[in-house]
């Protein structure tokens, strides 16, 4: 079960592929399963616990400083005076229960116990945002909105770029001229600005935006493919396929695309995903991407700008880490695949 993974490691780009694949797999898993398994849902607002910090930090504070403990008790008493200890202990999870036993010997005042269990109950492991939404639920919901728009960008970039590249590489003359002009025009407009123009003009819908992003990536994909196809067209097997009476369509789809360029396809898929995650989060941050209440990692950060400089680090920190990991995952996957391809092709 494990061994195929280990074998990858020995190959060029293996570590990158494995690491990237792992991150991407996690992201895909989170996207597919969604918030099915999370304790809270992203639209669930815990009004009693807005802006609570992540649990671990919270625990450390509680156990290390008496002041902190006191402060938290007070704040909690203010926030939720009606919480009863009995209902809470039933639901409390064992891990924390054990921690409590360990760090607070029975000699500790019983009030502390009550407070403990009361605090424990809110269950926001990574804390909450200012609306009392659970960070884990938000992060998981955010994964979806960076994955799906990315797929749109890929669909456009590869769906148009690959055929264009194939044609431009395979047929000289008009197709090539067309591709050159098309790509030249698209390349002239800086990506983000073009996206802004489209947003300015049309509905600021994240899927449209991502389609525009995809469009700006067409030149890269098509030129890459066209260059490869141009080289491949001169090679024996294309001549041989023609000689064998194969139609152009079959040569293009079967030989040039499927057998020779599918690796490039997947590499580009990966790299475009990385780029579209970057763009999507950036746009959401600029308030042009995913709009609240739909959750995106970018707009979580945007919404918590103010808290960033006043100590509530976790609202910005976790989405930022998630973004970096997602981008890194796709980037590594693409880079690893690329190294592998380069090695296989003897470059």
């Amino acid at each position: 079960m494990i061994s195929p993974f280990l074998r990858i490691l020995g190959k060029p780009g293996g570590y990158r592929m494995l690491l990237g694949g792992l991150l991407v797999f996690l992201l895909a898993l989170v996207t597919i399963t969604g918030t099915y398994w999370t304790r809270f849902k992203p639209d669930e607002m815990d009004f009693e616990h807005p802006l609570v910090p992540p649990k671990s930090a919270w625990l450390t504070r509680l156990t290390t400083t008496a002041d902190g403990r006191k402060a938290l008790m007070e704040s909690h008493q203010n926030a939720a005076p009606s919480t009863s200890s009995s209902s809470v202990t039933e639901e409390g999870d064992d891990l924390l229960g054990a921690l409590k036993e360990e760090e607070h010997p029975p000699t500790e005042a019983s009030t502390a116990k009550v407070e403990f269990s009361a605090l424990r109950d809110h269950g926001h492991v990574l804390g909450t945002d200012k609306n009392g939404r659970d960070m884990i639920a938000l992060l998981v919901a955010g994964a979806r909105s960076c994955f799906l728009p990315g797929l749109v960008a890929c669909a456009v970039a590869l769906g148009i770029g690959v055929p264009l590249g194939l044609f431009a590489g395979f047929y000289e003359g008009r197709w090539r001229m067309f591709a050159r002009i098309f790509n030249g025009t698209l390349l002239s407009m800086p990506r983000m600005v073009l996206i802004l123009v489209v947003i300015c003009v049309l509905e600021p819908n994240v899927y449209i935006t991502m389609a525009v992003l995809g469009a700006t990536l067409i030149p890269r994909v098509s030129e890459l493919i066209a260059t490869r196809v141009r080289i491949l067209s001169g090679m024996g097997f294309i001549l041989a396929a023609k000689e064998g009476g194969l139609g152009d369509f079959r040569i293009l789809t079967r030989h040039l695309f499927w057998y020779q360029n599918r690796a490039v396809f997947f590499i580009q898929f990966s790299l475009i995903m990385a780029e579209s995650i970057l763009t999507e989060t950036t746009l959401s941050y600029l308030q042009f991407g995913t709009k609240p209440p739909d959750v995106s990692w970018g707009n979580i950060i945007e919404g918590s700008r103010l808290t960033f400089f006043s100590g509530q680090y976790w609202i910005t920190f976790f989405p930022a880490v998630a973004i970096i990991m997602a981008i890194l995952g796709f980037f590594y996957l693409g880079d690893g695949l690329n190294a592998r391809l380069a090695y296989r092709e003897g470059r």
Partner: protein
Amino acid sequence: MLRNALRSLVFFLGCLLLVSAAIFCLVHLTPGNIAEIHNLSPQTAHVLHLDRSLPVQYLLWLGNCLRLDFGISTVDGTPVFALLRDYAPTTLFLTFGSLFFSLLIAIPIGMYRGLKPLARLGKALSVVVYTLSSIPAFVLGYVVLAVAFGVFHSYITTPPEGPFHFWKWTAYYLPPILVLALGNGSLGEFVRFISLEAQNVDAAMFIKAARARGVSLWPHFLRSLILPVFNIAVTNIAVLLGGLVVVERVFNFHGLGWLSWEATLKRDFPVIMGITLLMAVVVRVLMLLNELLSTWIDPRLRQ
């Protein structure tokens, strides 16, 4: 060579024409009337030619553009040319500054990585580089700001006034340049590309032959790497220009990126058209330069 240059020039002009037409169509296809959106009186709308037919409007606009008159902002009436003139220098400075820094970092690392693929240091460096460049500009920007505010207790997001003062200028311009240079993907792209390119050159027969002749390899390496590096730099200019939107907003720099963001928010169409056209010109000019330089440097392309 002359013919090639001429062909490039024609292509350059054709692309710009297409870009202008594309932007114009895009903007004027917007649902809703521009005059209505901006509460303009019929008189003002007339001044802006908004009551003419689309092709006429396009030709008028294009004709004016050739005379460097890009129209006026529909929000506050400032001539777009004045806005571009005021804001473009900052943007270009940031772009080329960050490009310079990116390359300064990426070339040594990329070459080291490409020439010594097994070296641990190179591997470690590339991990650092890739991680850095996976950080979106706005995240990295906030980190830099947090450091500036929290650690140095200094406020650096207003432009220095008065005579040139090195440290003031550095304090103001360096953070956004560094953010652009390190984050937002381009550094990783550069390192990846340069290392692959260095690997290719290293594997080339003529390098092997030069090694066998015992001559110094650097002239051969450098001359072969100039073009690819220049190529990737030029193709990344467009991406960098785009990245400025975020960086300029985070650092409150008043450049084209910031302007395009503002214009988008206010749906200030002439401004956004002007910016796009200007950026297209910049990108196209650089690409033209790239083509000419390629023909000049690479003897194989000269014929």
